[in-house]
């Protein structure tokens, strides 16, 4: 009698975020629907209250401190530093410095690459009776390099990943600590499910599974692996890179990616994509099909794609044969026009520079090619972790 309720659109209506047609639909509906009218009053009150939220003044000292940073940058230009360096430069000093540098590199190399890791991770029981190398841990235990942590159907555990994060281990899961050192923390997930929250700089935490390696890019995610070695990754915060051999995928928050043993990571997709889109994508990624069935699956993916699904279409460019790539290109270009410098011909011949340019346009590449300050942060973090 009243048509479809409009509850979900009420805030957008109050915030003037609806198209004229949608706004008219809401206005007409609330005239005849008491329930939605009541909800509109409630949302409208919420909007009015939220609008009273004042923007506060930052402390005056904030600007002053930022000015100090600017002063420091201005007072230490590279040229001045070079002048200071050259005035201190002499051949004997350089020889001593060069020798010291070689020794430091050798020691550093030994420390990071050769020295066996003797550290371990703290494990706390959440439920049941988690085991490390078949021995119950009680309330807590230590997981050393090479040891397996295992949970049964009733057990769960929390693992502290050095200084950089933590991992929650669900029931029926088996993981092994492969490596832990300042520049690399690595787990192997043989089966089951784990939830990782990592707050260190990107590319310090890795999880090996039978079907792909997950590389943390500053994020929180859930990784599942079944008994056949197939898995799926769900990212909730940040980004995760998946790779196996030359096949790789970048998975942002809100997206998932399936993996299969022997094949590697599939194509990432946003979890709110349509069912038809996801089903067709799974067929493209993992099923052996004749040309006709494959063409139909691709058509379904392309038809169902929204601008947000550019994530998926961009990945398809580099993992489809040229004829399919052309169709994926045309659909992607219609959803998100390629930036300057990217041509159809270039993308069809998989010009890496053009693919990267387009990915950057799609904001998929913010965490790749880390700038110097981020690399420095990563190094400092590694050093601090070693000292703590």
């Amino acid at each position, binding site marked *: 009698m009243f048509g479809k309720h409009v*509850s*979900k*659109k*009420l*805030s*957008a*209506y*109050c*915030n*003037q*975020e*609806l198209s004229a047609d949608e*706004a008219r639909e809401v*206005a007409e509906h609330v005239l005849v629907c008491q329930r939605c009218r009541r*909800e509109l009053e*409630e*949302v*409208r*009150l*919420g*909007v*009015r*209250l*939220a*609008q*009273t*939220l*004042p*923007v*506060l*003044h*930052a*402390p*005056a*000292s*904030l*600007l002053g*401190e*930022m*000015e100090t*940073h*600017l002063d420091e*940058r*201005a007072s230490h230009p590279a040229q001045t530093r070079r002048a200071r360096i050259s005035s201190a430069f002499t051949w004997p000093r350089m020889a001593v410095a060069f020798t010291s540098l070689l020794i430091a590199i050798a020691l550093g190399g030994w420390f990071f690459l050769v020295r066996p890791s003797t550290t371990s991770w703290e494990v706390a029981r959440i439920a049941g009776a988690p085991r490390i190398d078949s021995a119950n841990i009680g309330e807590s235990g230590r997981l050393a390099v090479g040891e397996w942590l295992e949970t049964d159907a009733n057990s769960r555990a929390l693992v502290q990943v050095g200084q950089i994060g933590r991992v929650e281990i669900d029931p029926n899961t088996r993981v092994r600590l492969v490596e832990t050192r300042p520049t690399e923390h690595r787990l192997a997930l043989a089966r089951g499910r784990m939830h990782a*929250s990592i*707050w260190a700089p990107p590319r310090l935490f890795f999880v090996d599974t039978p079907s792909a390696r997950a590389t943390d890019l500053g994020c929180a995610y859930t990784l599942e692996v079944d008994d056949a070695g197939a898995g799926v990754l769900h990212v909730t*915060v940040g980004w995760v890179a998946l790779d196996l051999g030359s096949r790789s995928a970048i998975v*942002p*928050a*809100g997206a998932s990616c399936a993996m299969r043993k022997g094949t590697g990571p599939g194509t990432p997709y*946003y979890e*709110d994509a349509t069912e038809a889109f996801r089903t067709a994508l799974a067929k493209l990624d993992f099923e052996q099909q004749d040309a006709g069935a494959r063409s139909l699956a691709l058509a379904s993916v392309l038809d169902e794609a929204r601008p*947000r699904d550019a994530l998926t279409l961009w990945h398809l460019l580099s993992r489809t044969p040229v004829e399919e790539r052309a169709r994926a290109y045309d659909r992607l270009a219609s959803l998100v026009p390629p930036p300057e410098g990217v041509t159809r011909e270039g993308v069809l011949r998989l010009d890496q520079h053009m693919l990267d340019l387009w990915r950057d346009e799609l904001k998929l590449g913010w965490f790749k090619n880390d*700038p110097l*300050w981020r690399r420095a942060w990563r190094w400092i973090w590694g050093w601090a972790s070693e000292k703590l």
Partner: protein
Amino acid sequence: MGEGASDVERRAVMAEKIVDDGVIAACQRGDREAFRLLFETYQDRVFSIALYSLGGDETLAKDVAQQVFLKLMTGIKQFRREAEFTTWLYRLVVNACMDEHRKRRRFLPFADFQNLDERAVSKRDEEEVYARTEISGAVHGAIMRLKPKLRMPILLKYIQGLSYEEIADVLSCSTGTVASRLNRGHKVLARKLGHLRNVSFEGE
């Protein structure tokens, strides 16, 4: 249709007019005055979002704002367009606040926020802020008690005046998710502060 644009939204639009591509290009060249303009334009809103998000701890909010601007100074050369800049700036703010939450593994106590008016608000125009002390105090409290995932869209909407699409971009989610979270946030505010239903608000 709907409610009129708030002062916050008008201020946001003005700020965007001041900080245009030219200012960002000047920052990328290391122009000190351009950096100053950028700080002055955004410092209050960055600080406000951090403060509301971090339980009213002014020192912590200031630290977070400082981290955000330092990252901005370091990374601004990567940006080519102003639209990307605002999204990036607020993503830095959101990430910095989330990092603080993670470090503490819980939300900060509400108690600290009770004195917010005396500490932070007292530094701004008294006529503007204290005219509605009762309402703003109650709204502060209710905002603080919202779940983080409902609170951040509200802060981005009403402190910064972002559109649903821009909020979705900052939070890396869909506009549908933003609409849903704002809907829930508005309803929670209305239910907690239903007693203010008949109070006339500023500007009405």
